[in-house]
């Protein structure tokens, strides 16, 4: 039953070409409203940035879209499938990089990649070839036998992205993927993301780096669980009458802190 439904909605999503559609998506923790009725539509192949100060609901939103936590109310359709009704079907179509490094530090680079790709059914000769390609593409081939725990921050993030994309998902969720990573590594990371987006991958990313925000196709600004603005970086700058996204961000943060005190 639920499978038939998800197939139907998948078709309609394919027609509309949207990777993510949320309607009044809401999450409460007791009296705390983490996300207050979010309406978002992200078309296929877009690099979409979620911006906002800490506690604005970015991570909660991503966790609801990946099925890690259940929304209090509202709906979310990801890759054409209702997340609340069928989280397992959604999981096969997405990749996810958590805020904290979530791979096994006591496994090697190649072992991590093998484990995650095999969980998605990328197995056998095809799996081996795909892993070899992605190790080359990400520059990880010379380090494939190193333990993941021995990698520096930049390499860890690259490995995490590799693990999140080897099964060729429709979209990836990246929760602050470059936090604490040096500028050169960040640039390389974003080059890979841009290439993948050109090939049709939808990317939903949260970040604190404003140069990264400027590289997104569109941005959504969150503040205390509410959607403040949505649009291309230049649209948002125009809307707030400011020269850079960073200025917009800082004004938001000051407003938040002012509201708290």
């Amino acid at each position, binding site marked *: 039953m639920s499978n038939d439904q998800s197939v139907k909605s998948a078709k309609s999503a394919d027609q509309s070409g949207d990777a993510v559609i949320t309607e009044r998506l809401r999450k409460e923790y007791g009296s705390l409203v983490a996300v207050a009725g979010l309406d978002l539509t992200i078309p296929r192949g877009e690099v979409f940035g979620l911006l906002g100060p800490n506690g604005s609901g970015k991570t909660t939103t991503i966790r609801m879209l990946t099925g890690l936590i*259940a929304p209090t109310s509202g709906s979310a359709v990801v890759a054409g499938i209702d997340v609340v009704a069928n989280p397992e079907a959604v999981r096969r179509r997405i990749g996810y990089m958590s805020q904290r490094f979530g791979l096994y530090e006591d496994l090697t680079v190649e072992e991590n990649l093998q484990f995650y790709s095999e969980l998605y059914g990328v197995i056998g000769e095809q799996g081996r070839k795909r892993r070899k390609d992605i190790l080359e593409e990400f520059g990880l081939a010379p380090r494939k036998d190193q333990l993941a725990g021995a990698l520096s921050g930049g390499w860890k993030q690259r490995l995490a992205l590799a693990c999140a994309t080897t099964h060729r998902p429709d979209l990836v969720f990246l929760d602050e993927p470059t936090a604490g990573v040096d500028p050169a590594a960040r640039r390389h990371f974003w080059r890979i993301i841009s290439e993948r987006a050109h090939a049709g991958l939808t990317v939903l990313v949260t970040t604190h780096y404003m140069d990264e925000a400027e590289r997104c196709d569109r941005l959504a600004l969150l503040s205390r669980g509410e959607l403040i603005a949505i649009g291309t970086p230049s649209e948002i700058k125009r809307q707030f009458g400011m020269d850079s996204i960073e200025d917009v961000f800082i004004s938001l943060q000051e407003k938040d802190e002012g509201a708290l005190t």
Partner: protein
Amino acid sequence: MSVRTRLQRWTLWPMLWKEVAQLRRDRFTVAMMVGIPALQLVLFGYAIQMEVRHQKLVVLDQAQTQESRLLAQALVNTGTFDFAGVVHSRAALEQELAAGRARAGIVIPHRFTRDLVRGRGAEAQFVVDASDPLAANGAIAAAGQAALVRSQKIVEASRRGAAPVSVVIQPLYNPAVRTAVFIVPGIIGVLLSLTMVLIASMAVVRERERGTLEQLVVTPIGKSSIMLGKMLPYLLMGYVQIFVILGLGSLLFHVPFRGSLLLLLLLSFPFILASLGVGMLMSTMVRTQAQAIQLGFFYMLPNILMSGFMFPIDAMPKVAQWIAALMPLTYFLEVLRGILLKGVGLTALWPQALILLGFTVLLVLAATVRFRKGLE
């Protein structure tokens, strides 16, 4: 539906492979799982002595005759006592006991030999430090035995024939009544549940603490794959532990193995799984590894004290017996002692086997139901 089950079935193999790869690098855990049984076996095997031997005995011999000296000698001959000196007054004897220099004293009065010769019952007084009941019971039993031996000898010597009543004792299954023979099979059960419960309770919570669980649960892996993938390698380790303890037990303590090894391994299967199920169930209740360890010890204490590992269940109060009936270890100990010491088979052990199987199904099911593939 079929796609989903197929997907979930093969996620077990990567999970198993990953767990084994991690275990292979975790030399410490592997060494502990083999080292701990060996160490515990030696500790328990040598230290736990329920027949308390070598208790210090002082003698107050007021009779000073051949007969009185033979009685004191008979006490030492039981093996329970070591001769610790002669005292010359009742006060001195009690002082030795109070100071802890002796655990028991024998008082042989002046008229002891005179009463014997006249054919009246001769009395000697045995004074024992009963603050430790286990030691005291051993001493009292030995004193009674020594008196019996002397009485028989005296009756036989007076040619009045054999003693009128004698009970011939035949200790079955453990003829020398050695504690190690009783304790070592129990150690297999206690150690298996200790290590299996602890390691399983930490398995899931460790991934939660390290942040790897969040990454894992957004994949299409089935939750049964996560549980089984973690339990099966430990099951194998459990069998390694059984062989280590059986081998050392036979080598160091000459513990017999009278029944079928195959049956023992077969019935260990539900017990190990049930213990892993308990651990998995705990891991769904705690947030940190430290909590898991605390909960693990909270579980183990009644298991060690009430399962019949050290103290007979029949002698416990009713409430303790009910608690014992709720612990898989209670039944597994009966299986272990039954097979190793009595050499019995499934015809005697089928109730225990069925109960263990029931525990396994119940616990693994409860753990799987409680385990949520999410972060809440």
